[in-house]
């Protein structure tokens, strides 16, 4: 690991003032310390922001406000979250291990890097790690890679579970930027696709600090489900995951949310399938139809064609699960 300076700050403005191109913010460290050990990231200074930003989980009017420093576990076991946003809790508990959920911050979950094996292997080309060096996964070991939204620059997937529920529930991300102005980014626009800059994972402005994540109360707290398919039952990244939530009026679907992890460079919403289901009956036939609609144009890579059928099944299972809550 490269030697670095360590600074602890007590406020966001202090952190912004210290930040340079060669330094990085640190909170939980569960991803960053690992990346530093592997020399994938080599900051000259770390700025500890754990005391600079709120770690509270609060109800503000009819909104959930998650302080950026709130640990994943704190969010998952919060009573307001369990009551009004159980999908968030369920998705968090499907990820990582109890130890990591105690350490990792909410903002850090959004900003974690991909687990594409080539990103971690510094002897191989990877556009995300070294811009314009090429993508090793596209013609290499890509069974864990994307099936949607990728291009020839990068086929990595975003590894989060937490983010899938935040995408499904249309959260917003608030950050402060270097001139101390506050900005709000809708969750669907927070993460990005590889485009021509696969080394950037999101649209957070340079040096900005995430301060909180907000989610408005909604009617998706009764019929919801998070299905995660992985290589082992627990403590593994998703091959595919599906967050599903239904707002039902009897059998009729008033509104629906469907999002997936493990399929794209960003948390992925199945908007076409959602549109199809709105106003229809919550029946298995309609769920199967919606799953087919979601997967019909997906183009797998050489080793991950299995994900398409798996995803179709996971969507149907998740929607059925919504009815069994």
């Amino acid at each position, binding site marked *: 690991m490269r*030697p670095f300076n360590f600074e602890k700050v007590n406020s966001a403005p202090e952190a912004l003032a210290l930040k340079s191109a060669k330094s990085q913010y640190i909170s939980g*460290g569960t991803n960053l*310390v690992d990346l530093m050990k592997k020399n994938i990231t080599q900051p*000259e200074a770390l700025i500890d922001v754990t005391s600079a930003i709120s770690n509270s989980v609060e109800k503000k009017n009819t909104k959930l406000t998650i302080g950026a420093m709130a640990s994943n576990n704190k969010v998952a076991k919060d009573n307001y979250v369990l009551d009004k946003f159980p999908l968030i809790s369920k998705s968090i508990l499907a990820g990582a*291990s109890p*130890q*990591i959920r105690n350490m990792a911050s909410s903002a850090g979950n959004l900003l974690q890097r991909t687990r594409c094996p080539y990103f971690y292997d510094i002897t191989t080309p990877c556009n995300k790690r070294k811009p314009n060096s090429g993508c090793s996964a596209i013609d290499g070991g890509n069974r864990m890679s994307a099936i949607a939204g990728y291009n020839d620059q990068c086929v990595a997937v975003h590894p989060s579970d937490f983010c899938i529920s935040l995408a499904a529930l249309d959260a917003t991300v608030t950050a402060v930027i270097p001139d101390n102005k506050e900005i709000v980014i809708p969750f669907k626009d927070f993460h990005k696709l590889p485009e021509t800059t696969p080394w950037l994972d999101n649209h957070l402005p340079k040096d900005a600090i995430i301060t909180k994540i907000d989610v408005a109360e909604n009617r998706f707290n009764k019929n919801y489900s998070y299905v995660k398919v992985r290589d082992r039952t627990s*403590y593994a990244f998703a091959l595919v995951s599906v967050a599903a939530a239904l707002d039902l009026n009897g059998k009729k679907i008033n509104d629906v949310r469907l999002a997936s992890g493990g399929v794209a460079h960003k948390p992925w919403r199945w908007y076409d399938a959602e549109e199809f289901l709105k106003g229809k009956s919550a029946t298995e036939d309609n769920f199967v139809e919606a799953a087919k609609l979601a997967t019909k144009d997906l183009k797998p890579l050489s080793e991950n064609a299995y994900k398409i059928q798996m995803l179709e099944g996971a969507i149907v299972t998740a929607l059925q699960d919504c009815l069994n809550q």
Partner: protein
Amino acid sequence: MEHKEQYSRRSFLKISGLLAAFAAVPSSVKAFYQDVKQYLIPKKNVSRLTLNINKTSHTLYVDTRTTLLDLVREQLNLTGSKKGCDHGQCGACTVHINGERALSCLTLASMSQGKEITTIEGLANGKELHPMQKAFIECDGFQCGYCTPGQIMSAVACVNEGHTGSVEEIKEYMSGNLCRCGAYNGIVQSIQKVAAQ
């Protein structure tokens, strides 16, 4: 034509000249090496930390890169916490930070000031083993023992958190601790035993 190996006056002068030149350079080479090293390998940063580990306050001079795991093992000789993968994948380094289980291999020592840290060495009450330590012995919760300190720290937290409702729940909440000997059944039994006490 046969070439015989022989030393001419010319080669003797060449070689001895070179050797004399080499003998003259060490100090300048050394200085040059230091310059290059300074440029290529940044100087390490050492800071003074006070950490509360197993209810004892320790003041140490620590390289900023030091993880909590390396600090307890290498500087305090508390070698109970184990380095399995060093990347947060195996749980062998599990300790309690402010009463919650955490991975010491991914925790920077610099970020551990002001926190209450408990390692496996701090679990027993004097010579009296912690109930979970006793249960691991009684239920065969280990074979080689390498993952055991991490398993026990995680198991204690698992009971404190109340995730012992079923075998499935225990397995889910112990999934961050791998055991390559496969002592999982004994580990689950140990946890059930302590949870029932």
